[in-house]
């Protein structure tokens, strides 16, 4: 399985942050996990490293319900920045939402690879990584 340099976790839930970071590090397939507590923090980071391609993540796991800037608003900004990245970033929405309307909306956005329903167990994460490598 291909190794991942950087993975971005965008989620305000501190328990989820802790658990998912733990699940990810146990797979030993990711070098660095960067955590942001809302969309705005992540967008500010992307803007601050403009032009430094190597600092961009390979994978983003994005939550939907967050304060300040939620997942949808993040995607709006992200899509605008995307052309400047010059790098293919794989973005998953990872939400506890089981509302079909959220899934339909997520799949209508081309920057979104897929919609993953929480919890992200080790098995689920491994299958995500498998999809990425193939």
């Amino acid at each position: 399985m291909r190794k991942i340099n950087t993975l971005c976790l965008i989620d305000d839930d501190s328990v989820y942050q802790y658990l998912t970071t733990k699940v990810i590090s146990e797979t030993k397939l990711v070098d660095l996990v960067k955590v942001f507590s809302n969309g705005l923090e992540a967008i500010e980071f992307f803007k601050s490293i403009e032009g430094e391609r190597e600092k961009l993540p390979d994978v983003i796991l994005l939550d939907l319900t967050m304060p300040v800037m939620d997942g949808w608003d993040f995607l709006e900004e992200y899509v605008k920045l995307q052309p400047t990245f010059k790098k293919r970033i794989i973005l998953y929405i990872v939400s506890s939402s089981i509302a079909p309307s959220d899934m339909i909306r997520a799949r209508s956005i081309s920057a979104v690879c897929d919609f993953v329903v929480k919890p992200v167990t080790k098995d689920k994460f491994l299958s995500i990584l498998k999809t990425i490598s193939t």
Partner: protein
Amino acid sequence: MIQERFKIFDPLIEGIQVIDRSFRYHYVNEAAAAHGKSTAAALLGKTMIECYPGIEQTPLYEKIKECMQLRIRGKFLNRFVFSDGSHGFFDLRMGPVEEGVLIMSFDVSEQKNKELVLEDKISGLEKQLALVSGQKKQLEDFCHIIAHNMRGPLSNLLLLNNMVQSADSEEERMLMISKQKPVIDFLNETFDELVNATTVMIDPEIKFDQVSLERSTKKAITLLQGTIMEAGAQINFDFKQHSDLYFPEKYLDNIVFNLIENALKYRSPERPLKLDLYSYSKDGHIYLDVKDNGLGIDLVKHASKIFRLRKTFHAHPHARGFGLFQIKNQLEAIGGTIEVSSLPNVGTTFTVRLNKV
């Protein structure tokens, strides 16, 4: 003298009358007289005011005067109230003639009354539709709460449980178990809030009390005294127009408390908080405005989310996203509303429609 030339109208079922220049009945056929619950003989030669005292105050009289003086034609739908209190609707067409004004009238009471019944039914249906739409919206909000707010902590618990089972050591197992406690507490809290909100909505007998905006505001200020002093906030209220209301006391207390607490929470670090509360009446309702000079909210982005559960817009450690959600539920349960206008970095005004004047 009845002029021969109008005789031709005698047998018509449409009413025909000619009013002369001194507003006397010059000619009236029996159909026209019957529209006014009178007879031709009783009207002829008399002035309109003699026959129907008070008619000079009506728009109909104005219309006839206009035709008479300007020599123009006109249409008028007249709701005529008879001396016995009953009323009829008459479609009038009038035009100038040599003698004065000729008026042709049709009794449209039957159609008009049916229309009124229909209008009544439609407005009743519209009210019901508004109620059902409101309930549908609330149901959607609940689905949202369950899909997002309840499933969030639940998925954490599922994952923690998964980790407890697959833990390598006893130490790790204990760590994972200890992490369950705050998640369970959070889930419990959300659950209580949901139950609280549901109870508000289905509570058929909300107790209305004689309450006072001033008292509720003073109560809230006392409870928040510590924060108010720490913030150096200046809170003014003016309830001269309306202070006494008939409103559920716990709701009013909660609404005022939450709006003041919100203003304190989201005050600007750049200027001391100035908060104004005032009441006024508009369109038959009593309103309360709560206006601050705080952080403000970008409503272009967040308008649809502001009253939702656990929606917060500022990176504030105590932002919970429950207050506004609860206020909205309480207000809607008793037919009130809450609206917001805001500008980032300028301030926010919440406008609460309480009850009828």
